């Protein structure tokens, strides 16, 4: 299990690539963002995005899955207070393969809860051509290593 102490500034985690599937773009859009460019290939091609594009909220959710599989699944994570900024830089299209990294930019122990650390990270999501599709600067609350627990 990884604890706050395992997240010094500069620490980097790589994402396991995930495939963006057309039916998942459509399903997410139908539930949360039913705009034509997200609902079908025809709607996407007719739009400024140029193809069947994932909702930015879907891209965010896919990034979250990559964060979970990248480090959170083995971390004493206690959630997040928020996101300083999210940039949707490029359309994420059906058939894309997303990957990327997240890097710790800052780490400090919470003043009000000394058993919790607040870690700031910057996640960069790229497509199969190496183009950056999203950049997200966010915070993660992570438990400090319990006293007496060897590293």
């Amino acid at each position, binding site marked *: 299990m990884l604890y706050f102490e395992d997240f010094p500034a500069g620490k980097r985690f790589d994402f396991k690539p995930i495939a963006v599937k057309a039916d998942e773009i459509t399903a997410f859009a139908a539930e*949360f963002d039913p705009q034509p460019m997200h609902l079908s290939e025809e709607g996407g091609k007719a739009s400024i995005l140029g193809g069947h594009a994932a909702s930015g909220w879907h891209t*965010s*959710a896919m990034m*979250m*899955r990559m964060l*979970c599989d990248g480090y959170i699944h083995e971390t004493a994570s206690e959630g997040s207070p*928020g996101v*300083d900024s999210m*940039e*949707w830089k490029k359309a994420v299209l059906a058939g894309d393969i997303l990957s990327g990294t997240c890097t710790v930019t800052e780490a400090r122990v919470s003043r009000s809860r000394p058993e919790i650390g607040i870690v700031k990270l910057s996640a960069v999501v790229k497509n199969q051509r190496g183009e950056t599709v999203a950049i997200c600067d966010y915070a993660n609350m992570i438990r400090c290593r319990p006293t007496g627990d060897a590293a």
Partner: protein
Amino acid sequence: MKLAELHPEGTRETIGSVHFTAEDIIRFAGKYDPQPFHLDAEAAKNSLFGGLCASGWHTCAGWMKCFVPYWMGEIRRLAEQGIAAPKLGPSPGFRDMRWLRPVFAGDTITYFVTFVSAKDLESRPGWRINTILCEGENQEGQPVIRFESKVIEFP
């Protein structure tokens, strides 16, 4: 008509509500945010949140779920008055998102949008970038989410 002309600065519009069932929370989390406090009511009791709660990204998606039909309604409402609604395009992103309180299973979140400001894009005549404040409150009137979103507007 420009977005800036539609709503006076600072006027908060209610855009709709989403009820978060345990089933919806677990389904979203299983796919996109599989952490124990979003998946398992028992495990969630031992977390800082204290109970099964929605992924923050699920709470965000709920805002969009309300905004799209709200905006379609605005386009129809304006058309009936003979007014062409502002042409809104994709969003380049958002900033200062705060998940202020957990959204627990059984909560109903009401979402709001407030027009904040508009800026002309120098590189593309007629195009603007709008800043809007997006918020959500639970059934007790407690704020659960807030963020500032950017929206492109075409001539």
